């Protein structure tokens, strides 16, 4: 039976709350309101306001408090409503959570999970639509996950909670309504990328909200006889370079698809690693499809033009094949 990405995430949160009394949720309007994206809907009724804790509008302090609670023996799952707002919480994440294990000589560690919704596509304009996964993926001391499938939405939370270090989970707002069958057995891999479609001609490397668009592009290309391989990074830090390189070595061509702004995108890092390690295996220049370098506009046609789209991805793939 099919469930939505939203339901899968809620199920994972519910199971975590049941499994471990140290787990609690904290964030803005996750309780009585039911969650901005209804992910946490109903959980406060089942687990009460202590474990499903609504916070004031204080992104710096409640994320910092999540870090402190983790230091104090709890397993907090902190929700930041939108990645733009998470800029207000970067200090406790970068300067405390990510540093403490090393800076304390290994005495302390911070098992906090931070869920952040990210991405554009709902016409909510520049202050609610950006993507900063690339920034988070550059911070030593944390793990960064980007579930792009319903199964990953359900299965990545438990291993994230089991991880002794801070884990940031990015949920693309366009995925919440995605529906799919999920297997009964649980996966627990938060180490590897996954090949979502095997192919021979060009490797399309992506993650998160761009995966459905990339798969769509691959279907388009298939109609033209271009057999694209689609790699879903899944884990943005540490990157599973081996899987990416294996795909690129096989296809000898690669396009990286990523909704962060082109300059400084996560795609740039993936391309840099390919250029470092698979240079002699490439038959064509590397390419990327990212967001245009503009504050994401409100008007639908402009927002669409600013974001990666299947057609752009297919075009970039064709170009690597000289078509």
């Amino acid at each position, binding site marked *: 039976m099919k469930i939505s990405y939203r339901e899968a995430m809620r199920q994972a949160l519910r199971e975590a709350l049941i499994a471990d009394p140290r787990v609690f949720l904290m964030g803005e*309007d996750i309780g009585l*309101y039911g969650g901005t994206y209804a992910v946490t809907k109903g959980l406060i009724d089942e687990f009460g306001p202590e474990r499903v804790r*609504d916070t004031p509008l204080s992104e710096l302090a409640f994320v910092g408090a999540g870090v402190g609670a983790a230091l104090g023996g709890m397993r907090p799952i902190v929700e930041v409503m939108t990645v733009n707002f998470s800029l207000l919480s970067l200090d406790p994440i970068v300067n405390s959570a990510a540093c403490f294990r090393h800076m304390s000589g290994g005495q302390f560690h911070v098992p906090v999970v931070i869920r952040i919704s990210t991405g554009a596509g709902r016409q909510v304009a520049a202050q609610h639509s950006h993507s900063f996964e690339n920034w988070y993926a550059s911070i030593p001391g944390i793990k960064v996950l980007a579930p792009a499938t319903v199964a990953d939405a359900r299965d990545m939370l438990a291993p994230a909670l089991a991880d002794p270090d801070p884990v940031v989970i990015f949920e693309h707002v366009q995925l919440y309504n995605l529906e799919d069958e999920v297997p009964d057995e649980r996966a627990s891999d938060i180490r590897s990328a996954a090949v979502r479609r095997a192919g021979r001609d060009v490797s399309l490397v992506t993650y998160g909200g761009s995966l459905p668009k990339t798969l769509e592009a691959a279907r388009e290309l298939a109609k033209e006889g271009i057999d694209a391989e689609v790699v879903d990074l899944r884990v943005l830090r540490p990157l599973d370079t081996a899987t990416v390189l294996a795909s690129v070595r096989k296809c000898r061509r690669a396009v990286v698809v990523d909704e962060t702004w082109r300059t400084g995108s996560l795609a740039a890092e993936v391309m840099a690693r390919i250029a470092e390690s698979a240079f002699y295996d490439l038959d064509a220049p590397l390419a990327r499809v990212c967001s245009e*370098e503009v504050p994401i506009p*409100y008007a639908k046609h402009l927002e669409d033009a600013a974001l990666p789209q299947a057609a752009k991805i297919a075009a970039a793939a064709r170009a690597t094949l000289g078509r």
Partner: protein
Amino acid sequence: MIVAPPPAGPVPYAKDLSIAFLRDMVRIRRFEEKCAQAYGEGRIRGFLHLYIGEEAVAVGAMHALEPADNVVATYREHGHAIVRGLSMDRAMAEMYGKREGCSRGHGGSMHLFDAATRLFGGNAIVGGGLPLAVGLGLADRMQGIQRVTACFFGEGAMAEGAFHESLNLAALWKLPVLFLCENNLYAMGTALARSESQTDLCIKAASYNVPTLSVDGQDVVAVHEATLQGQRHVREGRGPFFVEYRTYRFRAHSMFDSELYRDKREVEAWKTRGPLHTFSARLKAEGKLTEEEFLALDKAAVAEVDRAVAFAEAGTLEPVEDLLKDVVASS
């Protein structure tokens, strides 16, 4: 569900001004009712935050400001923009995502900007406007410009560090900033008492040595008088001033809100304190308004809104080729 009695008592203004207040409240109401409808029809997208129920605040406050003053608002700013002088046409076109919109369709409902009336947006970061207002005040002070910067924000914003840092800076440097808090009791689904250890917001503001006033935000007269007093203090160069408007949001927070967090009866009780009907009743009681006059101004407001919709629908789309225009100055 007990709420304060509806605003009552004499309206200390001449008929014209009194009716101007009523007219602006009606204009906002009609404008937003149409926005809600257009949203339902899919013509407006993204987030839409209605101000319905809170109209007396924007109207009473804006009428206390000078045209040369600065205004910094939130994502719930339709009313502020319209009363400030932005045409409904350009506001509606913005929400329709048209090039004729005040922000060329780049901002939408949450980002109405208007240089002509010195409206510095429509800010969708809660508390994001406060530091900007402090800077605008600083700029005026350093340039010797006699101007007030009016900064609107909700009570939820007072939990943000931005509030704390901004009030301290404004008070420390005695800047001409008028802090206007629209306390509608909820921040999305979070009631004031669930977000502030001190729910008397004036005590919070006073802790920065800023003078404060708290008034009934459903009473356009109380709002106007308090804001007049506040802006006078600021304009005289005596530093910032804080006003709390006790008001209530009659509609959902946005179009994605099932209102699980409040009791329908509470909403109904507050509606007995609706800013429009209570004020028009007072004006009628004083003989400053007849039913005919009311119907006429309502009709005019509806017509103005309909023209705005027509303008928005006739609007054009910014060419996709111009997507990157105005990210930085074109050199």
